[in-house]
């Protein structure tokens, strides 16, 4: 995974020379966040994919409603020996040789069944909740610890920096998947505190831990630069504590970097969860996630392709939409973007 690093949020609302008309005054300054929001809003592709991701989240949150009111079956309810009427014909939900029924395009088994007779559409939505929850928690862990460690390393430098960097380098040296599988397997068999076995937080913690260096290192780099700035000097002169300087002076200037990282980490976390689950170290049965659905469906590809296709498409759409929205966010927060402000107060983007 590559990291992007914004070089700072040096927003400028000064128009290029000659763009606003000579001798004419500019309208009152627009704050950097408002500017960024305007740029983002005008990026229709990013907004569309952001909306798509939001739609996926809402659909997954509505899983209990779909399960109860539409499909009338829970995500873990097995119905191996049940039957269903499709086109006037009674069919086995799971055949005598373990081949599940395909999409019926009706409320019951809309996307078909899996080999345990579970409703694929219901599991897709519940699985989405778990995948997104794991992704979100992992992202939170990564961002909090990554930011704190990067900030501390960059600000204090010296021994603290060396120690933190050493730990980060050790974690970074392991391929993310390998480290994830190792930790996930250990926690699946044993436990650390309340984290054990089938707890969904196990893969979330594992993934969050694995990605900490990917955030901490760029944050550290930026902090090293920011701590030499005049406003930080001024704060020191005023006798402010280290904590106060880090929290009130430096951290706000890292905000755009942090914001840019969030969708990046979220997308990778969701993908890594699917990968770890496929390798047996992520979400444990009978919990559903897009990863478990793909894993469970692999053996059925010759006869029931829909078991892999449905979660695969959802995974792709979710990750793609986060990534594209994230790219738009990067562009919106990009300080090199020049904005011409016309006299009417509207602006055009000429980058």
């Amino acid at each position, binding site marked *: 995974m590559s990291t992007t690093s914004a070089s700072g949020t040096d927003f400028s609302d000064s128009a290029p020379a000659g763009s606003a008309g000579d001798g004419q005054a500019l309208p009152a300054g627009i704050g950097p966040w408002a500017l960024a929001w305007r740029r983002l809003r005008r990026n229709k592709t990013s907004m569309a994919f952001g909306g798509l991701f939001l739609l996926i989240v809402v659909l997954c949150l509505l899983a209990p409603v779909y399960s109860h009111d539409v499909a009338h079956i829970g995500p873990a309810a*097995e119905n191996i020996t049940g039957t269903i009427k499709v086109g006037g014909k009674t069919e086995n939900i799971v055949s005598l040789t373990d081949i599940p029924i395909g999409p019926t395009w009706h409320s019951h088994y809309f996307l078909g069944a899996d080999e345990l007779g579970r409703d694929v559409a219901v599991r897709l939505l519940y699985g989405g909740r778990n995948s997104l929850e794991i992704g979100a928690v992992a992202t939170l862990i990564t961002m909090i610890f990554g930011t704190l460690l990067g900030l501390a390393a960059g600000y204090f430098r010296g021994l603290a920096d060396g120690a933190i960097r050493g730990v980060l380098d050790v974690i970074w040296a392991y391929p993310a998947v390998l480290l994830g599988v190792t930790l996930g397997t250990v926690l699946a068999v044993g436990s650390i505190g309340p984290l054990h076995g089938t707890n969904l937080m196990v893969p979330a913690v594992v993934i969050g831990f694995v990605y900490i260096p990917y955030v901490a290192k760029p944050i550290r780099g930026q902090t090293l630069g920011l701590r030499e700035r005049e406003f930080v000097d001024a704060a020191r002169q005023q006798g402010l504590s280290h904590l106060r300087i880090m929290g009130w002076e430096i951290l706000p200037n890292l905000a755009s970097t942090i914001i840019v990282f969030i969708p990046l980490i979220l997308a990778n976390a969701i993908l890594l969860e699917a990968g770890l689950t496929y390798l047996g170290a992520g979400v444990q049965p009978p919990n559903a996630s897009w990863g478990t659905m793909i894993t469970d469906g692999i*053996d059925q590809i010759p006869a*029931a392709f829909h078991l892999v296709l449905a979660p695969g498409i959802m995974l792709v759409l979710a990750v793609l939409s986060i990534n594209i929205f994230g790219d738009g966010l990067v562009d919106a927060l990009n300080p090199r973007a020049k904005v011409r402000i016309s006299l009417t107060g509207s602006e055009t983007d000429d980058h």
Partner: protein
Amino acid sequence: MKRYVKPLGAVLAVVIAAIAIGACGSSSSSSSSSKSSASSGAAAPSSSSSSGTITLAQGVFPQSLDPGLDYTTQGAETNWLVYTGLTTYAHTSGLASTKLIPGLATALPVITDGGKTYTVTLRKGLKFSNGKPVVASDFTYAVERSIKIPWGGSGEFITPNIVGGAAYSSGKAKSISGITTNDATGKIVIHLTHPYGAFVNVLAEPTLGLIPAGFPLKVQPTSPPPGVGPYKVTNIVANQSYDVVRNPLWPSMNVPGIPAGHVDVDVKVNSNVSANALAVLNNTADVFDWADTIPGSLQPQIQAKASSRFSFINLGGSVYYFFLNSQEKPFNNQLAREAVVTGLNEEALSRLGGGTLVPACFFLPPAVAGHPTSASCPYGTPGIGNLAKAKALVKQSGEEGAPVTVWSQERTPRLQWGTYYTQFLNSIGFKATQKPIADATYFTTIGEEKTLHPQTGFADWNQDFPNPIDFYGVLLTGGSILPTDNENFGETNDPQINTNAAKYSAISTTQLQANSTQWQALDEYTAKKAYVAVFGYQKFPKFTSSRINYGAALFNSIYGWDFTSFELK
């Protein structure tokens, strides 16, 4: 300005990548190897027919290729041809393949002293696969090693039955006093503590196959001892592969009834059984391991393309079940156990197994004398199960909400059986969670009786020999509970079972049919007590590539594929 990958292209690329990754499959585990092998997905094709090597695709590595430890079908499939015992089984198929014949002994044992003394004479001119001559005292060493390691069946079949076995096992004696041998004449005399009708079958176990005296008493997983047989094992790469090659010394030993092999066998291990089946279908592997299950999703394809080299064989000698630990909550409660067997949907489990299971309720399978032929199942005919009654029984037992850990293997369909069973337990009122364990370490893990005490989980058993004591003695009697490598996972310790199994164990294999009603009564009692939740008897796949002479390939009822019968067309 950044360029975006066209969304549709990205969708297709990722979906195709996901499918490609899935189709490649995963190995059971990885270790470094200097031997090249196609480890992902299909097993490697064998070399040219002139070298006579075929590839066998196996879903799980044996517990060990050291006969002193191994107690799995995967290991026995090879070891019975590498470590021939004083007796062995006929190289034929069907029920006739359970017939005992002399192995390294000149004749079947002479049994005297009311069934307590067994006398045999070793054939002359025998050599181990490393060329060392075989002497009678090598048999004693094999027995000692099996007790010391210990072999999983030693607690039932060997240690308590041979005079001096228990003293040797506990360290009180330096050798087993009940075995006397004469290296000059080849005579071996074994004294038993009590008549044990199946002992002549025990002598056929690979663990009692002769090995050179002085071989290390510890398990040697990658360099097992040399044996005497038509084959020997080489090139062991743990969890990945091993070669079963023809023993060049065997043909000259002229042991009647045990033919030499025609081909060498490269065994490739891949936990993705779908990939294994496809490999055999597409002729990139030659033999599908008999102990694996062909996924139902592939059966239509295999039937359509390879019907002349594929069939299911109903051996009737195996049982598939969930053990219920009668020493641990909640299954120390009879009503809780009854709830499980009442509600279990054997039909569903059969479908998950690709339709290869015959739904059942009795512990002794049909090919074993003592299988109840006329009795009804005490908790309903095996089929859909009665969920409502099961829920009521759980409530009545007072164990509603009890936490339960369900142990299962990881390969298809055992993982799915575990998942179904976990959800079933939750639906009748328990709080169950599934704990899948890597196949290669599953039975060793749940067999750690001194630390684990597993509540319930998957287990299966294929007959070591056609005698009910093989099932009861190892899996259901109190005396068979071992601190490690335990096979009585449910820690069943019922006085009635213990007493009757010990009594009936004296019935010799040849007299079993005449006395089968006693075993039947015991099996019906076991079903009523619900110590195990039996769900089926397995039908095994006989599936080869088009290179193999399918008609000539034999299935032994106890050991599965008979490698000596493999021929290239």
